[in-house]
């Protein structure tokens, strides 16, 4: 066991881990510092690769012994064969890519299932920020100003549901979490209002 497994996994990543079976092959788009992949390797015997563009993060991945490929997701996954992976993950990056629709389609081309997380722009606090202040919402989940945000395609749980329906994607699992990374009565009854983070597992 390496030091990475002893560190607490970010709660949303821990939830994703629970969806991934022993020995699966995984591609993690925008894998960051490789925390999830290292954890999956050590706890689930998962083999995988992370794609990342930030050099600092790439160095962290290498230090962790995680396979990391420098690649811009916006330029597609053309170098990866159809159906190459069991799972293709993308955590908290959907809102930052040029064409999220194309990325999700690519994820389902190279993987059997895609797991996507994004901040829900339909959350009541986001709505009230815009409603009462008349300004682009700034919060813990969306900490940037309108002019310097990497998030260029924010969407709501309802938007993503609609998108999956239109494209014929099956939503196999959906977790909508509140601020404490928990699912409560509110997020179950009214996910588009009370959910702060959405986690989807989809397939064709």
């Amino acid at each position, binding site marked *: 066991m390496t030091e990475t497994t002893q560190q607490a996994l970010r709660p949303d990543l821990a939830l994703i881990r629970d969806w991934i079976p022993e020995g699966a*092959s995984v591609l993690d788009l925008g894998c960051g510092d490789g925390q999830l992949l290292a954890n999956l390797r050590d706890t689930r015997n998962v*083999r995988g*690769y992370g794609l990342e563009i930030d*050099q600092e993060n*790439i*160095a962290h*991945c*290498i*230090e*962790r*012994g*995680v*396979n*990391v*490929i*420098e*690649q811009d997701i916006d330029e597609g996954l053309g*170098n*990866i*064969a159809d159906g*190459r992976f069991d799972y293709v993950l993308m955590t908290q990056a959907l809102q930052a890519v040029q064409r999220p629709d194309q990325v999700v389609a690519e994820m389902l081309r190279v993987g059997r299932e895609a797991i996507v997380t994004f901040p829900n722009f339909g959350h009541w606090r986001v709505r009230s920020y815009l409603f009462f202040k008349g300004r682009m919402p700034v919060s813990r989940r969306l900490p940037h100003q309108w002019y310097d945000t990497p998030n260029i395609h924010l969407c709501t749980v309802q938007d993503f549901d609609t998108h999956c329906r239109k494209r014929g994607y099956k939503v196999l699992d959906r977790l909508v979490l509140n601020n404490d990374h928990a699912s409560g009565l509110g997020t179950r009854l009214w996910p588009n209002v009370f959910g702060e983070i959405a986690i989807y597992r989809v397939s064709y």
Partner: protein
Amino acid sequence: MPDIHAPGSVGLVTPTVMHFDQPLELECHRVLPAYELIYETYGTLNADASNAVLICHALSGHHHAAGYHSEQDKRPGWWDSCIGPGKPIDTNRFFVVSLNNLGGCHGSTGPASINPDNGQPWGPDFPMVTVKDWVNSQARLADRLGIRTWAAVIGGSLGGMQALQWAIDYPDRVGHAAVIASASKLSAQNIAFNEVARQSILTDPNFHGGRYYLHDTYPRQGLILARMVGHITYLSDDAMRAKFGRDLRSGRFHFGFDVEFQVESYLRHQGETFSRHFDANTYLLMTKALDYFDPARDFNDSLDQAVAQARCPFLVVSFTSDWRFAPERSEEIVRALMAVGRDVSYAEVDTDKGHDAFLLDIPEYTRLFGAWMRRIANDLEARA
């Protein structure tokens, strides 16, 4: 004068020559009955010989990769930026072996060596050697040094090709492979540049069909031209612009063919320096080894199948401004390794330094490479 005793330097080093009597069968179907390899080592081999790292040299490189041969040395070995105590290839933790390849001109058996059959320099009779042949000869050197498995085989450019071939040919003897600024085979454009370089040597009046040793001369102009062409391709347009621009040596045009622009002066200087200590026949051989390299050829032209032989984790690094071995060429290797599920990490380092970047201390590159090597050392030490 550099500081020979600087803390990051391996300091003074002495090369060793090893003689081999066991004939070496070559890919060209000829046999080298006996040969010598010259090599240097840095650091200490541990008790179970598990910390050995092989450094493979590029086209004009040799065994002297780090440190100094004497107190008077003006320059350290060719990869001193990466090899030494605390450097990415940390000699406090690794035992580093660097050799001059067969066919070379710095102490290993090559065209300038004496052919035992006739007592004369081999010259053009020296057999064509390939990357595969080099790897086989290096495996014998490893045997003699008591190294069963290399912790890592590392190389840039032509050296990266050797690292890749090692991983394919000797999967159980390579712990890790680093393929830097390299390619799985040359492009037609690359071969074309090599051909220009070779023709400039072959057509030099002092070449004498490769037997210039007997005429007490050498194809100086040919070598200078070959190196000038090579040098242009190793730098990037931006690097040249930054270094020389269109600066004139005297500040005005002379309307003649003497050196006027700084870049002309630089190229001539590089070419001349090179021509003084590199053997023309070796240059011909090494560029041909580059041209012939194509491990996929043994596997129905499938690079996927070729790299599927390998078992070790890879590090592949490219440089944005390297147009001789462009990032796309490295990505081909990465794609094949991913397709067959091999462990690989890949980084494309942003620099304007061109192909030569792999020899330089570029912080981002040094950091990634250092992180990769540290991981290897940590894993080795954890297992011990």
